[in-house]
């Protein structure tokens, strides 16, 4: 029997499985208070999923407010849409708007690596599409457990294949990302997916359901039982009969990239023809989310006829239809006069489109199923007025001990040449080619830079050459040692990576991956990281335009390293002046190290890889310096003074030298001063290795000196040599280095 509103009114005392659905006693009581009765099964399904941590941000909201509080009007001036929309939108000039966002799909990817990762890509792409933009490229920041662990061999290949399988078939180039190994991710890998899209400024679409009489059209894939997750406890009560239990489908959604590709092209044609008044993608929480968000963003109510939703399973209950997370679906609000044309475009693309409801007067979201009312709620209470928790915060008791355990006493090696090779072959620094060559980086012909470059770069306008650059970064070990400073360092690195391509950073997105919010120590990390990131953005003068929070990332009671992945978007007026990462593009180049090197090894890759050590304080972040560095790089690119640039991060100068030589396929002679171990392996922030043509050298260093950016000449590019030579240490043949750098991941994963 279907649980209708009438039935709920008649049976106020009926017990409901709200606890199994993740609702607390007081949350359930609040739903009853809002509705002045018990919820129906369908309403309970909607509230429980929309009030979940994932959808409601109930533990993070009070902290995320800080992003808004610290964003000034000046920082906001280029923002066309910000936090709260499907994705942030930035005006990048020439009449173009760019939208970008990163989201997590961590838990599904552990359960089912391929589909979890695939649908992670699919979901973020639809978010970008729902802003009215053509999705242009994706990136994937990934975190795994120990590289040699048995489970990593199950999880990593599946996730990489899933990211590639979906993205390649969708026709979106993959232009970068991260692969990081740390034991803390052993039972909880992180799969974050970023998508960037572009549109003309006037084509920006926001989720609205305004205009009484407008039609609500669901289009794309049919709705099935996949990805129903927790709501199945309702199904078992409603539909399972003793004769035969219905086969349960996996709670991880199953993706079909072909359907998504067609959905993208179909949607873009709908936008172009002006047939869409409002649009929302169906992601987490499916129709529950789409209908309640569309209705609460508009100025009226909404009536949805649930029995009209095209299904791919029999006997789905209203609660299941509302909660299904079947992929590749969109929901549009369409003016009545445009419905016919809308359906015609869908028919052209063989996309199923169904009018499932309309915008009504009043302020209720009413959902009927075969003429019986199963949902009657104020939509804002579902979508935006969920519970908010100010959870206890406590600096971990062992934080002082952790910071006191500095790397100063770790033995430093004699043979530095050997260490360069060991570090180049370490899993966190080794070439990511084994991963990235499973991703199409060329499709659509706009990719100007992709892995292994510091940042990815995409051309937006073929006429003017305008484009954007993107990088995502986070060092969880730094964040563990000091979450405030660690978040700033993540921002600094992404900002620096974008600058190293020649682009000017303009906006920030984030994906905040943390342990359980019910652990006061985790909440402290979270609060500190948000503050660090927001304060950092204020110093740099660029806004956070959106983001995502993923809590409960832990194995047993052990939380992951706090991992606030930061994505920075940069603009370049002409991609032809991009700065490549590899040296050797021009004859006669000088190598300069910009920035200052200090003895900073807390959280370093050397301490981690060689000594298994994590302690002390992370490197110091100096965002004023980062800003100056960025301005110098952009000026150098604009005036043709810089022929290559590579950011220094994990592994320090040694790793940057190895990579710039191997990518450029040319040798270099390097001369360093002071303590060579510190010079080569320190991870001091705010540093970039640049190559400048000898003819531009004086002009470039004069600029650095005039603007008070510390610089030092560290070597020359040597096209004749096939080796990296370090004065006082000896030389490393590039072949040997390449074998070390490129051999690690294939040896681990086949």
């Amino acid at each position, binding site marked *: 029997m279907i649980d209708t509103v009438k039935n709920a009114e008649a049976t106020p005392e009926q017990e409901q499985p709200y606890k199994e659905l993740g609702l607390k006693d007081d949350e359930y009581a609040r739903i009853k208070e809002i509705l002045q009765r018990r919820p129906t099964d369908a309403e309970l399904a909607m509230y429980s999923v929309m009030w979940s941590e994932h959808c409601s941000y109930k533990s993070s909201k009070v902290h995320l407010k800080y992003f808004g509080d610290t964003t000034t009007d000046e920082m906001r001036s280029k923002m066309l849409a910000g936090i709260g929309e499907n994705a942030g939108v930035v005006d990048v000039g020439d009449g173009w708007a760019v939208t970008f966002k990163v989201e997590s799909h961590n838990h599904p990817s552990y359960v089912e690596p391929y589909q979890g990762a695939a649908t992670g890509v699919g979901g973020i792409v639809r978010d970008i599409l729902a802003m009215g933009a053509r999705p242009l490229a994706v990136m994937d920041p990934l975190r795994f457990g120990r590289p040699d662990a048995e489970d990593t061999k199950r999880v990593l290949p599946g996730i990489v*294949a899933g990211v*590639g399988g979906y993205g*390649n078939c969708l026709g979106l180039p993959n232009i970068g990302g991260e692969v990081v190994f740390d034991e803390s991710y052993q039972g909880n890998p992180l799969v974050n997916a970023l998508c960037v899209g572009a549109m003309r400024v006037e084509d920006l679409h926001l989720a609205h359901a305004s205009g009484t009489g407008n039609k609500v059209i669901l289009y794309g894939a049919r709705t099935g039982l996949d990805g129903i997750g927790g709501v199945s406890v309702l199904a078992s009560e409603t539909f399972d009969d003793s004769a035969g239990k219905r086969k349960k489908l996996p709670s991880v959604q199953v993706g079909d*990239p072909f359907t998504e590709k*067609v959905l993208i092209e179909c949607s873009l044609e709908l936008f172009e023809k002006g047939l869409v008044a409002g649009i929302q993608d169906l992601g987490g929480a499916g129709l529950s989310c789409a209908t309640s968000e569309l209705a609460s963003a508009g100025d009226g109510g909404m009536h949805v006829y649930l029995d009209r939703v095209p299904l791919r399973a029999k006997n789905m209950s209203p609660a299941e239809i509302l909660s299904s997370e079947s992929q590749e679906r969109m929901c549009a609000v369409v003016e009545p006069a445009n419905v016919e044309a809308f359906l015609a475009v869908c028919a052209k693309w063989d996309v199923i489109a169904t009018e499932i409801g309309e915008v009504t007067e009043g302020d209720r979201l009413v959902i009927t199923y075969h003429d019986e009312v199963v949902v009657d709620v104020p939509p804002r209470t579902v979508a935006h007025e969920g519970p908010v928790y100010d959870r206890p915060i406590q600096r971990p008791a062992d934080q002082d001990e952790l910071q006191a355990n500095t790397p100063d006493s770790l033995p430093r090696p004699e043979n530095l040449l050997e260490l360069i090779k060991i570090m180049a072959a370490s899993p966190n620094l080794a070439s990511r080619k084994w991963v990235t060559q499973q991703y199409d*980086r*060329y*499709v659509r*012909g706009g990719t100007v830079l992709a892995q292994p470059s510091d940042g990815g770069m995409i051309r937006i306008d*073929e006429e003017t050459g305008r484009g954007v650059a993107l990088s995502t970064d986070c060092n969880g070990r730094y964040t563990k040692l000091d979450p405030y400073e660690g978040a700033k360092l993540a921002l600094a690195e992404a900002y620096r990576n974008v600058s190293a391509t020649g682009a000017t950073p303009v906006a920030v997105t984030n994906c905040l991956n943390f342990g359980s919010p019910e652990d006061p120590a985790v909440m402290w990390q979270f609060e500190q990281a948000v503050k660090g990131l927001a304060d950092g953005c204020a110093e740099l003068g660029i806004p956070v335009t959106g983001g995502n929070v993923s809590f409960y990332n832990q194995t047993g009671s052990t939380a992951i390293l706090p991992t606030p992945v930061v994505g920075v978007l940069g603009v370049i007026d002409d991609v032809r002046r991009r700065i490549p990462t590899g040296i050797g593009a021009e004859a006669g180049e000088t190598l300069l190290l910009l920035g200052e090197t200090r003895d900073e090894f807390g959280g370093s890759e050397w301490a981690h890889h060689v000594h298994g050590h994590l302690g002390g304080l992370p490197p110091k972040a100096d965002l004023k310096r980062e800003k100056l560095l960025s301005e110098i790089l952009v000026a150098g690119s604009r005036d043709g003074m810089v022929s290559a640039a590579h950011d220094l991060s994990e592994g320090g100068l040694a790793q940057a030298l190895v990579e710039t030589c191997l990518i450029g396929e040319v040798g270099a002679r390097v001369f360093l001063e002071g303590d060579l171990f510190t010079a080569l392996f320190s991870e001091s922030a705010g540093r970039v290795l640049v190559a400048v043509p000898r003819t531009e050298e004086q002009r470039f260093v004069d600029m650095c000196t005039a603007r008070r950016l510390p610089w030092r000449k560290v070597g020359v590019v040597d096209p004749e040599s096939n080796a990296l030579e370090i004065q006082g240490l000896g030389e490393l043949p590039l072949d040997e280095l390449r074998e070390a750098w490129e051999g690690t991941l294939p040896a681990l994963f086949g």
Partner: protein
Amino acid sequence: MRVGVITFPGTLDDVDAQRAVRYADGEAVPLWHGDHDLKGVDAVIVPGGFSYGDYLRCGAIARFAPVMQEVIEAANKGMPVLGICNGFQILAEAHLLPGALVRNHKLHFVCRDQWLKVENNTTAWTGRYDLGAEILVPLKSGEGGYQADEDTLKELEDDNRVVFRYVGDNPNGSRNNIAGISNARGNVVGLMPHPEHAIDALTGPTDDGLGVFLSLLDTVVNA
């Protein structure tokens, strides 16, 4: 020069093929999979992607599309037709080219910059290249292993119908390192690598692929 570029549902590299035609001073004419005529074009490119999701088998559904019936007819009359990646798979399924493309021997999708040797510069699509020239273009496919029976391979080799061959380690297990082949007449060419992604060193590894489209220009002008 007017060159038709077909779009099936799931086609991905159609915009790239169109751009390559423009770079060779041609006019790119979009053709839709449901079209029943070729709009008077001089040549047709069947681009890469995952037509119809590549369900069943790569290219197996696309070959039955209405527009493909027109392409088959025109190709048999001598119209230049180029199949790239999924387009090659479709031409093989349509029997315009012999053999089949199977899953890469190492099972992974492979995206890399690949050296190719031009083995035949007398086809409609390769006249601009020196015989034996080595070119660097992207290869990006999961099912790019060229397979054919011994008789077919012998015929292809004997009749000089291997147009491009992989240089260096074989990326996908193709027989005889075959990257691309032609029909007997030389008007139909199919290859797995993507010359349309190597027309500008800004967005590709080189501009070595542009020769394919300039070759077509010569063919059309001289026809």
